[in-house]
């Protein structure tokens, strides 16, 4: 398994394979192809998405299955929901997760609730792909991490991959899933390279991965924050502190067992979430652990998150906004210290 490709390419491959395997799978979004009806671009795409993630799919599957949409998120997201209910299996792209405000009703009140409201007599096999995260200098309206907002909504599943291998396998699972899945791609990960097998494979939702084993403290890290955790872990290892890193991969459903088992072993938990601090996934996991794993805990559960502020534009501030390894290292030391004292 030596082939290395980018996060972006891994996602592209997943869609390519899914579209080959099932002709009900279609792609919907703004400029997912690009250049529709332009004379010299009949069966070619101009863009393949603003990040180039869908590049080549328009060429390969044609504009009837790779559909550029007007800038009308409510319109095409609602259409995606109904298309899913009536026989298709759409992958619908919300270019930036920040634009969810324009399509929230379609996601929250229509898509996520239809099955329940209809007494189980509907399925919504829709995958929403979207990009999130700060670090691209894109400022307050293009840098949020809003997976927590969707995790809160019953009827939705939420996936946040941290690396190319997972991105491909999880996306294939999401597309094949018969429920509505929101798939979050950190835009600053698109160029990240990693080993990715060719061809078809899937990774189940609701199954966390232990990225690194350790006995001293558990870190749960979401998406790109896995990298922050790994960098912190490397620094800590030099000081003989061995942390265990868990990547939940899907936030809804959440693999509570893997997290609880780890905390049972380590007694300490830190969660890294790039979202703003209130009512986010970090608080969600913390609350779950203190509820179900209280007796395991030897120290407070700490959370390293963005501050309760919008994303600033200035690069120096933006770098402070995103959780950093140094904050994680400092926090872990405090937690270990506390434990040492209390031992």
């Amino acid at each position, binding site marked *: 398994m030596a082939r290395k490709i980018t996060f972006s390419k891994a996602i592209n491959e997943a869609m390519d394979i899914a579209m080959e395997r099932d002709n009900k799978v*279609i792609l919907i979004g703004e400029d997912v192809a690009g250049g529709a009806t332009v004379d010299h671009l009949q069966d070619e795409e101009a863009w393949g998405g603003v990040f180039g993630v869908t590049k080549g799919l328009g060429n390969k599957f044609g504009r*009837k*299955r790779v*559909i550029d*949409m*007007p800038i*009308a998120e*409510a*319109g*095409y*997201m*609602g*259409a*995606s*929901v*109904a*298309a*899913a*209910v*009536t*026989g*298709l299996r759409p992958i619908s792209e919300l270019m930036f997760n920040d634009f969810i405000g324009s399509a929230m*009703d*379609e996601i929250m*009140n*229509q898509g996520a609730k*239809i*099955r*329940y*409201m*209809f*007494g*189980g*007599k*509907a*399925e919504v096999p829709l995958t929403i792909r979207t990009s999130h995260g700060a670090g691209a200098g894109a400022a307050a309206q293009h840098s949020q991490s809003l997976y927590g907002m969707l995790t809160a909504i*019953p*009827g939705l*599943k939420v996936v946040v991959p941290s690396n190319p291998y997972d991105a491909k396998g999880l996306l294939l699972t999401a597309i094949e*899933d*018969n*429920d509505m899945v929101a798939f979050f791609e950190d835009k600053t990960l698109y160029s990240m390279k990693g080993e990715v097998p060719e061809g078809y494979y899937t990774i189940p939702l*609701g199954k966390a991965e232990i990225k690194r084993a350790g006995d001293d403290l558990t870190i749960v890290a979401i998406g790109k924050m896995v990298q922050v955790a790994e960098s912190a872990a490397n620094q800590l290892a030099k000081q003989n502190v061995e942390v265990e890193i868990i990547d939940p991969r899907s936030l809804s*459903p959440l693999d509570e067992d893997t997290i609880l088992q780890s905390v049972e072993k380590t007694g300490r938990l830190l969660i890294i979430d790039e979202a703003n601090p209130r009512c986010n996934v970090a608080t969600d996991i913390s609350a779950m652990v203190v509820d179900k794993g209280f007796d395991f805990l030897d120290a407070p559960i700490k959370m390293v998150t963005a501050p309760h502020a919008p994303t600033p534009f200035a690069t120096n501030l933006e770098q402070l906004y995103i959780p950093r390894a140094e904050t994680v290292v400092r926090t872990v030391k405090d937690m270990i210290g506390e434990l040492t004292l209390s031992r």
Partner: protein
Amino acid sequence: MDKKMASWMFTKMNDIRNFENQVQKIFATGEIPGFVHLYAGEEAVAVGVCAHLENLDYITSTHRGHGHCIAKGCDLNGMMAEIFGKETGLCNGKGGSMHIADLEVGMLGANGIVGGGFPLAVGAGLSADILENGGVAVCFFGDGANNHGTFHEGINIAAALNLPVVFVAENNGFGEATPFEYATSAKTIADRAIAYDIPGVRVDGNDVTKVYEVAEEAIERARNGEGPTLIEAITYRTSGHFEGDNQAYKSESDKEKWPVEVDCIEQFKAYALENKLLSKTELEELEKASLKAVEEAVEFAHHSKVPNEEALTENVYVSYK
């Protein structure tokens, strides 16, 4: 229009009227939870349009959805049980009046969100277009909904992609307590069709034969790949916005005129007689049968059980964990 169609339309209109009258009566007793928005008086719109639809065609609906459901072929028993919150309801009692749905007959759900239906209809149209099954989608919406952003996004997408979707405005004069003319800056809803370069037609929504004609043309256009049409049916909400509304915003003259002088069922009855589509006896028999069917639905709902406790957390997902 042949005899069979006339009898179908007369029955459906009566079913809706009788159904709503029963709901109104029972709601007053407190037996129906929540709130209900009644379609009585507007029957000609749903019936005239759905007369042209098959099971593979989809409709989207509104908070005032009972009429659309009946016209599209939803089972009266299952509907009434749903409104009562019973296990035998079309949605197992979990949806209620504002969410009655039956995908098997192409009914994509009443909708608690004003404007919620536009994008859904576009999606159903997209499926028909891609699956090439010859289906069309019809979006019923109110005059109030015509000012929501989803009206614009939905119709523009459907028109830009030339999808088989027909948009049917039910202009009943009010959105809640607000007159159409106050909230809508356009002179007519049909005028707005020009913003999408599609045909826009106004029709007397109390005359089911006129609605029938206009809808036929629009649905044929859609089926033939000629794209969307915007129909504005002029009708009147004879009841309050919801049951319990004092309707202080209506003039006395309107209140008197509408249910009496401009009743769509009476109009159609006269038409059917005059054109010898249905005899007096036939009409009476159909009326009786409808009344009976609705009364049976009430019985059915009454005697059905409420959902089991487990239903609370069932069917949120197909699978989870």
